């Protein structure tokens, strides 16, 4: 036992204990242990729910197996003093239960996902996605069957509303509310659309959901159709996702054969057909109104809102558009109820979130974790730490996302907390970068992407992205104008305020957050003596 710690304190982390401040208690424990110089002997480990419920924050001690309940920040110091300095059980909070015997601590070390439980990715990797029987075997299409049998569309919308599910595409709009708008429309013809045009760089969660569990998405769509009163649905999927297209096509055929899609589903008076539309390589089509234009065979340029799609969407009919991950949450919510769903994540952002983690880390890939987890936990507990170098920054939410510096490593990743700081969770991509990455070069690359993907409809975005790209290239070469940073800031704010669609507005996110946290580094690219020259025919920069 010389190298390994003698005792471990297990902190039960689940939806309830997080709300009661389990994470703060965890840091307090570590602080107290350090105060007594016991960090080599006592290790603090997070686990899933330890067992006792309604006992506040619960701690377990390994190997002795005692369990303490109702732990608060105030009594942590006394607890450490009594239990580890004096060495006797801390009777005040001791519970009668004991830790399960034969508990395997290795399990608790890293792969915590299984203790949290998954919703969206539950079946991924467990069932054969091309075999509908296997999906049915794990409870698939049960939610749809029960709903058609016993529930009214209003019941379903209420359950989705109560669950607190918000759209997982990036904007974070409450799903139940969106459905109720589409439901309210008196039109007889309505559409359900699944937005699978996952173009945000660094994001590939939807692809893995569609490849790993296509029926879950279809079931969620059918439930939505029943709820809002639509009988036709489309999946708009990007042309690059060949495997997803194949699997979904097969899944739709299989479901139709078994009468789970098509006419009179489950023998009831409910028809629902799903068709696939393939995109052709355009980022802005991920914006819902641009997607609708693209589906109608037009240029994928965004439309003016209002009218919102719930009023006038595909072919001017009421349309409900949701992201793949959002639909994948529906069947489990209907089957298990909204209270069950609320056990995951935080109070204001219930549920789990699927993240893709990338960059200079040891284990890039996909994780599904509760809302409210911190960047530090993602990097060190799930991604296996930095692959090389020191952490410098992370971009959350893809290329249109904010750049966070190391001071924000401990901010909980959930919609509200981030909004307080003026940031956004975005699509779920987390790009981790070490100190080898230059911020100016990185932003130049981001801007190049936007220059390419700007649809050209509004001039602020069409010209603004190009000007941004040039500015960051100048900064990278250390020959930026004396007032370049102020100009960039002004331009970014203009984009945020005046660009036509969310894509153009989002260009400001990486720029403004980089200016906020990495202004010192960026200013090194400025040449204080470089003044603006009048533009003439001879010195005009070529438009590439």
């Amino acid at each position, binding site marked *: 036992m010389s190298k390994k710690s003698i005792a471990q304190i297990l902190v039960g982390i689940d939806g309830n204990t997080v709300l009661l401040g389990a994470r703060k208690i965890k840091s307090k424990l570590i602080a107290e242990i350090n105060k007594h110089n016991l960090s080599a002997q006592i290790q603090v480990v997070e686990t899933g729910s330890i067992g006792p419920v309604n006992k506040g924050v619960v701690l377990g001690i390994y190997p002795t197996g005692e369990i303490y309940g109702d732990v608060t920040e105030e009594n942590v110091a006394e607890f450490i003093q009594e239990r580890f300095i004096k060495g006797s059980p801390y009777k005040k909070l001791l519970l009668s239960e004991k830790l399960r015997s034969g508990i395997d601590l290795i399990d608790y070390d890293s792969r915590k996902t299984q203790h949290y439980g998954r919703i969206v990715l539950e079946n991924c990797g467990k069932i054969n996605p091309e075999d509908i029987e296997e999906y049915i075997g794990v409870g698939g299409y049960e939610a749809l069957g029960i709903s058609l049998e016993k529930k009214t569309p209003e019941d379903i919308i209420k359950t989705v509303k109560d669950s607190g599910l918000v759209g997982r595409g990036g904007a974070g709009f409450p799903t139940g509310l969106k459905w109720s708008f589409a439901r309210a429309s008196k039109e007889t013809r309505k559409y359900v659309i699944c937005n699978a045009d*996952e*173009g*945000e*760089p*660094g*994001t*590939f969660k939807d*692809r893995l959901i569609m490849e790993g569990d296509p029926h879950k998405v279809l079931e969620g769509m059918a439930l939505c159709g029943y709820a809002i009163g639509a009988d036709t649905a489309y999946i708009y999927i*990007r*042309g*690059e*996702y*060949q495997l997803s297209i194949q699997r979904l096509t097969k899944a739709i055929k299989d479901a139709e054969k078994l009468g789970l899609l098509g006419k009179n589903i489950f023998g009831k008076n409910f028809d629902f057909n799903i068709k696939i*539309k*393939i*995109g*052709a*390589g*355009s*980022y802005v089509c991920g914006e819902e109104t641009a997607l609708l234009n*693209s*589906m*109608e*065979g*037009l*240029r*994928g*340029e965004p439309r003016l809102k209002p009218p919102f799609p719930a009023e006038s969407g595909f*072919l001017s009919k009421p349309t409900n558009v949701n992201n793949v991950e959002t639909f994948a949450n529906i069947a489990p919510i209907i089957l298990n109820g909204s209270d069950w769903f609320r056990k995951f994540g935080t109070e204001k952002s219930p549920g789990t979130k699927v993240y*893709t983690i*990338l*960059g*200079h880390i040891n284990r*890039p*890939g*996909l994780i599904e974790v509760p809302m409210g987890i911190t960047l530090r936990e993602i990097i060190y507990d799930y991604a296996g730490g930095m692959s090389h170098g020191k952490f410098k920054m992370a*971009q959350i939410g893809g*290329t249109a996302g904010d750049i966070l510096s190391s001071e924000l490593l401990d901010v909980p990743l959930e919609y509200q907390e981030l909004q307080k700081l003026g940031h956004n969770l975005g699509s779920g*991509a987390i*790009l981790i*970068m070490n100190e080898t*990455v230059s911020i100016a070069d*990185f932003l130049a*690359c*981001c801007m*190049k*992407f936007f220059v*390419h*993907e700007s*649809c050209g409809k509004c001039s602020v975005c069409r010209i603004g992205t190009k000007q941004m790209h040039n500015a960051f290239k100048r900064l990278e070469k250390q020959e930026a104008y004396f007032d370049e940073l102020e100009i960039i800031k002004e331009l970014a704010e203009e984009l945020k305020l005046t660009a036509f669609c969310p894509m153009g507005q989002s260009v400001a996110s990486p720029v403004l957050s980089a200016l906020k946290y990495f202004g010192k580094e960026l200013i090194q690219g400025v040449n204080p003596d470089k003044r603006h020259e009048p533009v003439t025919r001879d010195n005009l920069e070529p438009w590439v």
Partner: protein
Amino acid sequence: MTTKEIIKKHGNKKENLLQILHDIQSQNPKNYITEEDINTLSREMIISVSEIKGTASFYTMFSFTPRGKYIIRVCESPPCHILGAQTIFGAIKSKLDIKVGETTDDGLFTLEGTSCLGICGVAPAMMINDEAYGNLNEEKIDKILDKIQEKEKI
């Protein structure tokens, strides 16, 4: 399938235009949409030529110029960029002696830069037609391209 048959398969409604363009392009051995195709589309679907061109040119996946049998699309987005996408471009350019947007003299390869391919877990990455390749380095690219070249010689 002829262009007319493709239109018939999908139906001549405007909302099927993208699907029809996809099919027309992929059955052309040179991977592009010809002037003639557009004229036929315009007549059959009753959409003006300028509108079809406007729509098709909006999307990166459609081309109006002949391309190689194999289209190499290297991801240029930030996740691949920080892990060395520029090296990948360098390796392909020097091996095939083409720049971005060009086709090799034998009509085999076209090199294109593209936005995120959604396989960032194995960045830097590229696609050759429908096949995705990840965790690339110069050596790997050499092997991949050699293999295709050999296959095509036979």
